[in-house]
């Protein structure tokens, strides 16, 4: 299989011929010459193989995927019946409350102790729109102060619906377009890409976090996916717009920023330096930022003009800035634009919480795992911050250098995944939910060349199941064991992965020692995960170590994610034809 650089490959016409890739999804039984699907998801889409149009199958897929989301949403959400603070659900609801009931200048200042707004402005606008719609249905849902901790079942239905609608407006179309485009670029048939698409849309992690636990991650992930899709289509300015949108929705999108920068820079440098393209991208980025901040700035100026302060509860001179306090030496606190400066600084302060600890709760990354051996809390914060910075840089530099020198479309998701893994494993203030970020680009590989073959399917499956498993302690807190088990097992069943089937490792015959190694390694992890579940359910941890199971979860999770990072990096290196041995080997094949 000599792989010509995909960028030189012309997009193929749809359904022209079934290529060799389909053969891997379809297992050929030698003796009867009858083709059979090699995992259940392929079986479900089996009758659609010959259908010439995707438009017959796609609506059905979207209906089924939506049904699973809505049914999962019938279960509880984070913070359900957990006073006094409740959880993420209350946070999102509260933001709808403050954005619709307070003047814009107060959005980022209002009672920060009770789920103060700490996401960038696009989230605030999104909350405002949803809050306005919700107020039309029932104004009590978002009444200032009195609605806090509301457990109204109809409100829950409304909130669940907003997640699904947001996802179907952004994430789902982006995934559909990406899967088609990526599939076509890497030369797989529409049917195979559709199988990959369903696998992407049924990813257990996103459903569990967004539709069960409750958040709007898919909006940000969808915008990043749209950005990646635009990169594939070589619409670089659009990709900048989408990425700025993602970043302005959730700062977590920064995990991808280096890769996008490296890829774009690579595309502007090779084969020849293209300054006008670079300049155009920079300009569009700046303009998008401006446009997205503009409503907030205009709102603040308007509020100042009509005499509404950002903090009506405080009297006297404005309090010092929370960060960048030196600015006041150059700026007159009485000037007309000071409220804008104050607001921008406040947004930065809220969005990037450097003052918080290295990690929150228990998360399966390096620092939390290290904490078992060394008590990290004993070291000075500055040292830890520097250590985190250095470690993260060390982890993300290799994939970004590769993608800069070899900015290929086919390997782009790998670079995204490796960088995001680097951030997840080593950076500051990581959340267990952040694992969705590396999982997203890694899962997208399923729609590409050989995406459903042994190597990629087993690794993507491993990462996703491990990811869901590390979120189990979070889900358990609000009794979400059942949806966790159902959605994770269902996905593993559909893709023919452990723990429901080990066929993925034996399907295509003996594939060398690397295959044996992968199978052994994965099996060890799957056994550990199963054993952990048994222990966690039936064995009480020793008295002096009450967190034993959580710590074990973190340790196994970190090791597994570390492997995923290495695999992504290795695949990236290999597929970029940077290894001399592999380059010659692929040619002789």
């Amino acid at each position, binding site marked *: 299989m000599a792989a010509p650089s995909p960028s030189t490959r012309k997009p193929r016409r749809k359904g022209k011929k079934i290529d060799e890739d389909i053969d891997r999804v379809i297992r050929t039984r030698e003796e009867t010459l009858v083709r059979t699907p090699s995992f*259940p998801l392929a*079986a479900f889409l089996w009758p659609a193989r010959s259908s010439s149009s995707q438009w017959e199958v796609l609506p059905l897929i979207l209906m089924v995927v939506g049904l699973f989301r809505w049914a999962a949403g019938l279960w509880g959400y984070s913070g359900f019946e957990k006073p006094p603070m409740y959880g993420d659900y209350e946070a999102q609801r509260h933001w709808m409350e403050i954005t619709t009931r307070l003047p814009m200048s107060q959005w980022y200042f209002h009672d920060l102790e009770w789920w103060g707004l700490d996401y960038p402005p696009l989230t605030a606008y999104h909350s405002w729109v949803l809050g306005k719609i919700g107020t039309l249905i029932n104004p009590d849902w978002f009444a200032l102060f009195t609605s806090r901790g509301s457990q109204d079942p109809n409100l829950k239905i409304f909130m669940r619906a907003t997640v699904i609608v947001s996802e179907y407006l952004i994430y789902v179309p982006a995934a559909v377009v990406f899967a088609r485009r990526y599939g076509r670029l890497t030369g797989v048939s529409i049917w195979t890409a559709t199988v990959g698409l369903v696998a992407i849309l049924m990813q257990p992690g996103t459903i569990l976090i967004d539709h069960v636990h409750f958040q709007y991650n898919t909006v940000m992930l969808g915008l990043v996916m749209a950005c990646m899709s635009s990169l594939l289509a070589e619409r670089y300015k659009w990709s900048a717009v989408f990425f700025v949108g993602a970043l302005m929705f959730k700062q977590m999108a920064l995990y991808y920023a280096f890769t996008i920068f490296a890829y774009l820079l690579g595309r502007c440098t090779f084969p020849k330096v293209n300054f006008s393209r670079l300049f155009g991208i920079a300009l569009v980025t700046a303009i998008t930022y401006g446009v997205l901040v503009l409503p907030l700035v205009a709102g603040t100026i308007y509020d100042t003009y009509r005499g509404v302060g950002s903090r009506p509860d405080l009297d006297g001179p404005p309090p010092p800035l929370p960060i960048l306090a030196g600015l006041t030496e150059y700026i007159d606190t009485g000037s007309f634009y000071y409220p804008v400066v104050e607001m921008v600084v406040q947004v930065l302060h809220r969005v990037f919480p450097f003052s918080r600890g290295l990690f929150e709760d228990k998360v399966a990354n390096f620092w939390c795992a290290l904490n078992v051996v060394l008590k990290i809390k004993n070291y000075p914060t500055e040292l830890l911050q520097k250590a985190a910075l250095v470690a993260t840089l060390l982890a993300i530099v290799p994939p970004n250098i590769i993608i800069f020198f070899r900015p290929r479309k086919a390997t782009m998701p790998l670079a995204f995944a490796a960088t995001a893994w680097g951030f997840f494993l080593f950076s500051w203030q990581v959340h267990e939910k952040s694992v969705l970020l590396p999982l997203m680009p890694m899962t997208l590989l399923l729609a590409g060349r050989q995406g459903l073959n042994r190597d990629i399917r087993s690794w993507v499956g491993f990462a996703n199941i491990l990811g869901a498993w590390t979120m189990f302690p979070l889900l358990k807190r609000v009794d979400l064991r059942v949806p966790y088990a159902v959605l994770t097992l269902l996905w593993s069943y559909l893709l023919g992965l452990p723990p429901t089937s080990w066929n993925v490792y034996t399907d295509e015959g003996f594939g060398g020692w690397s295959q044996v190694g992968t199978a052994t390694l994965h099996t060890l992890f799957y056994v550990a995960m199963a054993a952990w579940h048994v222990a966690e359910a039936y064995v009480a941890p020793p008295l002096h170590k009450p967190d034993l199971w959580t710590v074990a979860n973190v340790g196994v999770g970190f090791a597994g994610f570390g492997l995923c990072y290495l695999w992504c990096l290795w695949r990236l290196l290999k597929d970029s034809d940077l290894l001399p041995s592999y380059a010659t080997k692929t040619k002789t094949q």
Partner: protein
Amino acid sequence: MSNNIMSEQYPTLAQCALVAAAFKILLFPAYKSTDFEVHRNWLAITNSLPLSQWYYEKTSEWTLDYPPFFAYFEWTLSHIARLVDTAMVRIHNLDYDSWQTIYFQRTSVIVTEVMLVYALQLFMETSPLQSRRAAHVVALSIILSPGLLIIDHIHFQYNGFMYGILVWSLVLARCKTTLLSSGLIFAALLCFKHIYLYLAPAYFVFLLRTYCLSAKSIFRPRIFNCIKLGGGIAGILGAAFGPFVFTEQMPQMLSRLFPFSRGLCHAYWAPNVWAMYSFTDRVLIHLAPRLGLTLKEDALSSVTRGLVGDTAFAVLPEITPRTCLILTLFFQILPLLKLFSKPTWENFIGAVTLCGYASFLFGWHVHEKAILLVIIPFSLVALRDRRHFGAFKPLAVAGHVSLFPLLFTPAEFPIKTIYTIFWLVLFLMIFERMAPASKKPRFFLLDRFSTLYIAVSIPLIAYTSLLHQIVFGKRYEFLPLMFTSSYAAIGVFGSWVGYMVVYFTA
């Protein structure tokens, strides 16, 4: 698709059942009707009381009113239930719905549905080779039926199990050697749930003609077969009712099983002839002054008009149970005559379907859930040719849309509508492609009726679920219900007429 017949079909029945089961587990916290408490109460009764008091017990208003085999079934379940949560099986613990109870009861519905999977697998395997692909699609359509999803897994009942037994019995009737077991299994089914009595005439005629009488002459009974069948049925009835005869509960049990005091129409109108009758009456009230008809004052003043049970008619004559019975029997006997003269398996399934139709359309106090009595047997022959499929189409739409009022909570609204639309789009599309052309000419009118009928459903669903609330708010709540059931009644009635024609001309 160029697959040869030998190859297995994908997705397999088991794969579909498994993924559907995952979806059903996710539906655990969904709305559940009083039937959930009914079945919990039966667990409690059978577990904590001696058999002699089962049909007398009335602490809860949801007394045991199913035949004995179902009571035994609940008794078996209750042994596991007690291990899961002892509080579940206490009689005085009314409206008890702990998480354990929900897990246990909902899981028992999913697990017992394996019966249906087995029966459908048997149906596929016994189908002749040339129609095996069609049988596969039909089996998938039944296991994924939105009717079963809505009634069993949200509303709560054990229909998957019951229809599993019915399909099993129907499939066994296909082969001469298993006719006896088919009859006996059906007898056992009657001892589980007596609603299947509606289908009994078809069984009686079919078994009489193919099993008890000689194939060559109807005047030569096969005595040994008669003894086997009669003895078998007597044995089953004895096993079911014997203990209750012994404990002298029979009159009490019968009064529970056949409560004749109920009204003509069930709480929500089932989409049958009487729904259309009520609708006509309702329209006539407004036309009466112009037409010079007299109105019955007491019926007009009835506040509950259109919503609750005892319907009184203002213009049209009252309907008595006797009228219902005569009409039902008459329309059951018609197809049975043909079955008697040509006792093929296809005719048998047709006759079962038409018996279901007649009792659903003309019966007294019919429940909308009973539409499965028609849909499931009909599914088995829906793909015989395009004429059958043409008659099946409006039934598939009407039957499932008529179940919508069963679930009225907003959280379940997307599930019932999207799932039903998904099922209709998927299976009507596949059926459309697979149904072979008929040897007989098609009926132009019937085809046009199907298409027009399906088209009307879209604005209707939009109106009943959305527009009505926006326009009228909480007022005239009976209107959407009345429209739904009248619309569905037209569909069921139309498909019945269509199928009668197909059945008699086939």
